[in-house]
C-alpha cells in the first residue's frame, strides 16, 4: 500500500499533509537539525503565516507540522490542560489537516505540543516535546539591542542574566522569577524555556525526549537534544528551588505535581488541583483521592471514556 492511494481525512481538506507545503517543512527541518546540533542556540527560520494569531502557538504548530508523520499520535496541552480552547483547536487542526490520531494521554502520544507545562509523567525517548514560545530571547528585557544580544550569546558574556536574579533577591529577598526561568543548556547557551513554571525546569535536565522550541512571531527555533544537561541559573547562597504547596491536589491527592489555585466562590474558598489534567485524571482512575474528591460539584457526571479520536480511514 502506498501512502498516496490511501484516502485519509487530511487529504479531503485540500491542504498538503499537515497544512504546510513540503518546501517549508524542509526549511523548518533544516533549522531543527541545526538547533539540535547546537543545543540552546536560537536558529532563525522563515516563519510562515499560520491560520491562527501570533501568540497562539504559530511557532509550535509549524514545528509540529514539519515533524509529524501519519503514524504519529498527537497530544496538545495548554496551561497543562488538554481541554482548553487553544489545545482543542490545535489538536483539531492536525486531526483535520494531517489526519493523525490524537490523544489526551501523555503515555500514548508520540508528539506533545505544549505551551506552559511539561507533562508530569516522565517522557520517553520515543517522544518529542514541542514548545510554543512567545519570546525566545532570554536577554530581551535586559538588552534591547538584537545585535548586542547575539554578541552576548556568541561570547557567553552572560553575567547580565545574574543581574536580573540579583534584583529579585535585593527587592524580595529571594529569586522571584517563577516562569520562563533562564537555564543554561549543555554548559553553553542560556535559553528561555518559554513560559513554563520553574517547577518544570528540572524536568528538562537529562530528559530522554527530544525537546523542540518554536517561536513563530520572533522566527526562532531552538532545541534540547535528549539527555542534555540543563541547569537553572542561581546564586551559591540562593540556590534554585521549585514551588511547593501546603496542600495536595484536592481531587487526586498528588503532592508532587504543579497545582493550580481555583477560586470557588466569592467568600474566599478555593481549591488546588493538578494543572496537568491527564496526570490528575489518570491518578483518579487508579483510585487516588484528594480531600475534595467526593465533593459532588467536581464529580464527573459519568466516568467518561477518555477521549481517543481516530481519524485514520
Amino acid at each position, binding site marked *: 500500500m502506498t501512502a498516496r492511494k490511501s484516502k485519509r481525512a487530511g487529504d479531503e481538506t485540500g491542504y498538503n499533509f499537515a497544512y504546510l507545503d513540503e518546501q517549508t517543512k524542509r526549511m523548518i527541518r533544516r533549522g531543527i537539525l541545526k538547533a539540535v546540533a547546537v543545543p540552546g542556540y536560537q536558529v532563525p527560520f522563515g516563519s510562515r503565516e499560520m491560520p491562527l494569531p501570533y501568540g497562539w502557538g504559530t511557532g509550535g504548530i509549524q514545528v509540529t507540522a514539519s515533524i509529524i508523520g501519519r503514524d504519529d499520535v498527537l497530544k496538545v496541552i495548554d496551561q497543562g490542560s488538554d481541554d482548553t480552547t487553544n489545545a482543542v483547536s490545535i489538536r483539531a487542526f492536525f486531526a483535520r489537516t494531517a489526519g493523525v490520531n490524537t490523544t489526551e494521554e501523555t503515555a500514548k502520544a508520540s508528539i506533545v505540543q505544549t505551551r506552559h507545562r511539561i507533562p508530569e509523567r516522565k517522557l520517553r525517548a520515543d517522544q518529542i516535546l514541542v514548545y510554543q514560545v512567545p519570546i525566545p530571547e532570554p536577554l530581551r528585557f535586559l538588552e534591547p539591542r538584537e545585535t548586542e544580544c547575539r554578541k552576548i550569546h*556568541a*561570547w557567553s*558574556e552572560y*553575567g*547580565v542574566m*545574574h*543581574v536580573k536574579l*540579583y*534584583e529579585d533577591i535585593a527587592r524580595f529577598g529571594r529569586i522571584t522569577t517563577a516562569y520562563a526561568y533562564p537555564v543554561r543548556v549543555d554548559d553553553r547557551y542560556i535559553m528561555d524555556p518559554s513560559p513554563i513554571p520553574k517547577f518544570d525546569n528540572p524536568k528538562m535536565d537529562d530528559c530522554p525526549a527530544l525537546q523542540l522550541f518554536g517561536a513563530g512571531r520572533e522566527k526562532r527555533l531552538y532545541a534540547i537534544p535528549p539527555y542534555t544537561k540543563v541547569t537553572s541559573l542561581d546564586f551559591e*547562597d540562593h540556590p534554585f528551588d521549585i514551588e511547593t504547596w501546603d496542600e495536595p491536589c484536592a481531587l487526586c491527592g498528588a503532592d508532587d505535581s504543579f497545582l493550580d489555585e481555583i477560586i470557588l466562590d466569592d467568600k474566599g474558598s478555593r481549591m488546588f488541583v493538578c494543572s496537568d489534567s491527564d496526570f490528575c485524571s489518570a491518578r483518579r482512575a487508579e483510585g487516588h483521592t484528594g480531600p475534595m474528591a467526593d465533593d459532588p460539584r467536581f464529580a464527573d457526571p459519568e466516568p467518561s471514556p477518555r477521549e481517543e479520536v481516530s481519524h485514520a480511514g
Partner: protein
Amino acid sequence: MPDDQMLLRVEGVTKSFGAVRACHDVTFDLWPGEVLGIVGESGSGKTTLLNCLAGRLEPDSGTVAYRNRADELSDIFAMSEPERRMLSRTDWGFVHQNPRDGLRLDITAGGNIGERMMMVGARHYGNIRTEAETWMDRVELDLDRIDAAPRTFSGGMQQRLQIARNLVSGPRLVFMDEPTGGLDVSVQARLLDLLRELVRELRVAVVIVTHDLAVARLLSDRLMVMRDGTVVESGLTDQVLDDPQHEYSQLLVSSILQV
C-alpha cells in the same frame, strides 16, 4: 609590572567622519597611575579621541596599544572583539558625561555596582552585596539607597554611582568624558574631590576629557590641548596652564571666567 613602562601607547590616531576630520595624528603615552587631561573647545575632537582610545570607535589609521596585566603591549584593535570587550569590563572603566548612558536605570544601585562582578563570574549574592555596600560607602552614597533605582537619584548621586560601578572591578585605566558636566558647582567640587582621592588611592590611570580647565587643573598631571582634531600643545598641567605656549592655549586660559 614596573611602573616605568607605559600603560597605553597611542600613535598617529586619526579619525574622520566623511569630510570632517575629528582627530588627526594624535600620539602620546600614558603611564600607570597617571591622569591625563584632554581639554579643548566643544567640537575639537576630544570625545572622538577618547572613544578611539577606549576601543569604542575604530580609528581610520594609527594604533592604540595597551599593556595588559601579563605585561604584553598589544594593539587593542588587532585583538578580537570579545578580548576587547573583556578588557573594557575588567581592566578599563568608562565614565560617561550623562550617567544615564553608563547606568542601568531600572536596576537597583547595588545591581549596578554588582554587574561587573557578575560579569566575571561572581555567583555569591552575599559577597556581591557586601562589595556593593563597600563601594556605596566609598563614593559617599547613603547605604539606605542600595536597593533604590538610579532614576530616583540626583545627578550627582548618579554620577558617583557610575564611578563606583566602574571602579568595582579594580580597573587600571579609566576613561572619563566630562564627568562633572551638567552638575552644579558645589556638587562638582565634591565629586572632583572624591575622584582625586580615589584616583590617588587606587593608583588608577585616567584619561579625562573636559572643557573645564578648572577640572583639568584639579585632577590631571598632564594636559593635552586639542583644537580642530589636532593636539596643539601638551605638557605638565601647571606648565600648560601657567605658561601656555600655543596661541589657542593662551586664548583658552585667558577666557576662564573670573569671579
